């Protein structure tokens, strides 16, 4: 089995990939659930279309950031044709590293703002 790449090699994550990982941080979700959560996280600033969503999921599956889940939260309430996704350990490390990177960027911006440069 090949060793997964260190998360730093995957940075910077694109905004859709970052927000999809955040949507999967708490629980497994299906495509539309991810789409709704990303809209909530960003105050509707980032609305993923079906092509963007599944294009990103395809690449994230290939990179090992997410995986498909066989379990259904409640089969009685759910359409069994839906595919659920969950975050892998690599995905968790990558989203942490990206959050850290963004925090550093925000800190740098705040310093410049406070100094009146911006």
């Amino acid at each position, binding site marked *: 089995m090949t060793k997964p790449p260190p998360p730093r090699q995957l940075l910077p994550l694109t905004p859709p990939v970052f927000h999809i990982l955040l949507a999967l941080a708490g629980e497994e979700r299906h495509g539309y659930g991810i789409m709704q959560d990303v809209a909530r996280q960003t105050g509707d600033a980032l609305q993923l*279309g079906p092509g963007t969503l599944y294009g990103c999921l*395809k690449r994230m599956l290939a990179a090992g950031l997410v995986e498909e889940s066989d379990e259904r939260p409640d089969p009685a309430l759910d359409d069994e044709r839906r595919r659920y996704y969950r975050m892998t350990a690599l995905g968790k490390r990558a989203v942490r590293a990206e959050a850290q990177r963004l925090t550093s960027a925000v800190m740098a911006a705040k310093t410049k703002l406070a100094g009146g440069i911006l």
Partner: protein
Amino acid sequence: MTPQPVSRSGMLGSFCRFYSVLLYAYPRDFRQQYGAAMRQVFRDRCREVARTTGPMAKLRFAIHLTTDWFATTVREQAAAFWSAGRKPVSRGFVTEWAVTLGIYLFVSTTLVQAYVIPTGSREGTLRVGDHMLVDRVTYAQPGPLGAHLLPYREIARGDIVAFLYPEDIRTTV
């Protein structure tokens, strides 16, 4: 039941069928893997937008979907093209030859055509067995748009002109 929900669900069905057709622009592998899930997400999102938003938001949604479709079809087609080395040879072979044949037919019927000189009637300038490419554009009838785009001009002294073989031989001089 009021007529409104019926017409709305009818419209939703039409949109979904239209979106199913649009999915054919994606590469076949991508469509087979994610097409059904994309249709499902599209249907869910349409339902939500129809229920919760006004006409302007619906228009923005339609524009957003169109740009998403266009951008991601280009992206996935490019990704499929670059990873084509891993695909079976036969499919690539057929596509390659079909494209080559298509380009050849387009070029030879509209742009240039290859000829071999059959007789010595232009001896001194063109000899028997010479190969030449005949420009089919310059003397053609310019259309309203083509006149600005393509290099049309009148026949000038010194030009070598190839004639089409006449359908009625009696029209030859």
